[in-house]
């Protein structure tokens, strides 16, 4: 009789013992696979949070302080960064996004801006923030304003603007409408707010791609052009068409977004070495979005999960080994009989291995099904809230204000699952070999004496 037939008979006839082993292996397997998936989820989530948090550094202009007729005057300088400078900086590290910004003003015959202090027909204008990615601008990122309708401005947007819900309402505008903007420049002369644009007026027809709402109200009395409600976020080509900026030159500020906050400390010193940038008028501000505060907590959490996993694995392996060892030892008589009828030690061992590993394989299938059920049930509870706060790169590229959908944090790749089962398979095989070896090292006569 072959060892496989003997093993099959044992599995079929010793149902209680077989079920016990099956249950033990199934529970331990489910436990281990779930632990690995949680560990894996923690790693992915940490990386996602890190990337979601990211970091940034801003190239900005200094302000110069002057005294005119005994009065202190603070004047903000312009930066002067070109596409060549940006290309150079982008080579210094893994820059996820670069967001150059130009500032200007615009009037429109089709738009009546929300009146501010001393508003009149001449100074009824809004500030234009022309940029590459509106979603990355501090006003949106820090939730001063929020996109209510439509889409954000992205790299490929052309002649696109986002206006406030107040402007849209007042002027009966909606997403998809086209309006004509006109060049303007805000200035103060004899304490009067006026349009100081001296050059020929230029116009550009733009399309409203989005409408934003103001979340943090600013109630201070300011000029019409300085009111948040009148601020227009536009694609870079809008100010270029209005003659308020030059191609490939950025005078407002340039923001660089780094995917991994840990890289910030490597990139910024290199940027400071660029000789073409006049560092007397430019400065760099870094922002790791509080990452440094939470990174230690993330690391501690990750380490804690790893320690827990190791403990669970060791305890599970020990319990499994002990029970399998006791199980094998209860089969001393059987081993003795097999040896007495001339079945070799190797064949007896093969039978024990075949039995347990067959049961183990069945238990693995069961544990995989259980794991899928656990994954289904727990992903929502554990990660739904977190994942909704993580913004994807895809969302940014598409201009949508979308959040991350279910990432399936608890789902494990087939490779990792097979690794867990293989390790268990190995532990079980070693346990069987170890416990059986204790018996099979004895001479058949000794074994039969124990009976």
């Amino acid at each position, binding site marked *: 009789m072959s060892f496989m037939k003997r093993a099959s008979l044992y599995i079929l006839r010793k149902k209680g013992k077989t079920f016990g082993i099956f249950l033990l292996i199934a529970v331990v397997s489910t436990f281990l696979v779930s632990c690995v998936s949680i560990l894996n989820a923690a790693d992915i989530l940490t990386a996602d949070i890190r990337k979601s948090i990211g970091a940034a550094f801003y190239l900005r202009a200094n302000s110069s302080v002057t005294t005119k007729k005994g009065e202190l005057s603070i004047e903000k300088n312009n930066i002067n960064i070109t596409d060549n400078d940006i290309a150079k900086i982008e080579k210094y590290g893994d820059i996820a996004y670069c967001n150059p910004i130009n500032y200007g003003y615009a009037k429109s015959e089709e738009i009546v801006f929300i009146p501010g202090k001393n508003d009149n027909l001449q100074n009824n204008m809004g500030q234009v923030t022309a940029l590459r990615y509106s979603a990355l601008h501090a006003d949106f990122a820090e939730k001063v304003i929020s996109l209510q309708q439509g889409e954000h401005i992205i790299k490929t947007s052309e002649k696109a603007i986002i206006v406030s819900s107040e402007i849209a309402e007042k002027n009966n505008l909606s997403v998809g409408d086209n309006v004509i903007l006109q060049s303007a420049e805000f200035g103060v002369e004899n304490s009067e707010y006026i349009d100081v644009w001296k050059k020929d007026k230029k116009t550009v027809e733009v399309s409203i791609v989005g409408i934003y709402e103001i979340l943090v109200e600013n109630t201070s009395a300011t000029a019409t052009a300085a009111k948040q409600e009148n601020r227009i976020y536009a694609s870079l080509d809008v100010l270029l068409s209005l003659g308020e900026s030059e191609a490939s030159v950025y005078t407002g500020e340039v923001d660089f977004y780094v995917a991994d906050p840990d890289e910030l400390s490597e990139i910024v010193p290199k940027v400071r070495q660029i000789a073409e940038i006049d560092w007397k008028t430019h400065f760099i501000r870094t922002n790791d979005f509080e990452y440094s505060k939470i990174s230690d907590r993330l690391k501690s959490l990750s380490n804690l999960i790893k320690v827990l996993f190791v403990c669970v694995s060791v305890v599970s392996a020990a319990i499994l080994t002990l029970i399998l060892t006791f199980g094998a030892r209860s089969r001393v008589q059987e081993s003795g*009989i097999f*040896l*007495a*009828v001339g079945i070799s*030690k190797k064949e007896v061992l093969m039978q024990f291995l075949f039995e347990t590993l067959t049961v183990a394989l069945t238990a693995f299938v069961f544990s995989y099904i259980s794991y899928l059920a656990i994954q289904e049930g727990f992903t929502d509870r554990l990660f739904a809230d977190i994942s909704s706060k993580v913004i994807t790169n895809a969302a940014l590229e598409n201009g949508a204000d979308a959040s991350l959908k279910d990432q399936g944090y608890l789902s494990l790749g087939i490779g990792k699952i097979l690794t867990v089962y293989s390790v268990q398979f190995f532990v079980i095989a070693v346990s069987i070999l170890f416990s059986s070896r204790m018996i099979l090292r004895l*001479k058949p*006569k000794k074994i*039969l004496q124990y009976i």
Partner: protein
Amino acid sequence: MSIIKVCDIKYSYNNKTVLKNISMEFEVGKVYAVVGVSGCGKTTFLSLIGGLDSPLDGQVLFQGEDIEKKGLAWHRKNNVAFIFQNYNLIDYMTPAENVALTSKLPPLPMLERLGLTKEEAKRNVLKLSGGQQQRVAIARALASDASVILADEPTGNLDEDTANEIMGILKECAHQMKKCVIIVTHSNDLAAQADVVLCLKKGELQKR
């Protein structure tokens, strides 16, 4: 013609000599009974012949060849078959499957020959009576096609009538099937039915 020959074998354990330079030949077609008081080394002697253990000194020859040469497992598988007092059947197998452990031939004819019905041959062995279990053990030994049958107190757990029946079967194995049957027993009645009675006393084996 001798099939098994023990040459000057010695065995001791716990500093106590159990077998002292025993030499003996065993022939096919005969039933041998080894008798002696409890603990005199009868079972040890049987274990050495059957290759369950090795002597400290001396040789066991099967058809003139040292059994250690091809290995004790090979000897157990091909040359000898055991019958134990407590039957030693595999409890999760039927009688037919127990017999099939040692033979590739269909087990049913052998079991029927030893008095088991087809239905009994398919039951779990633990559901059979002691006598029936011992018949299964004998069937397993005979099915192995071994020339030597080694029986250690084969009737020790059986009533007198059943014991006589089992002894009859063993004698049949020797006389009709031309096997060499060596029985270890402390029963003088059983030993009296053997062709040759050997007495193990103070480590020495003598024909009675």
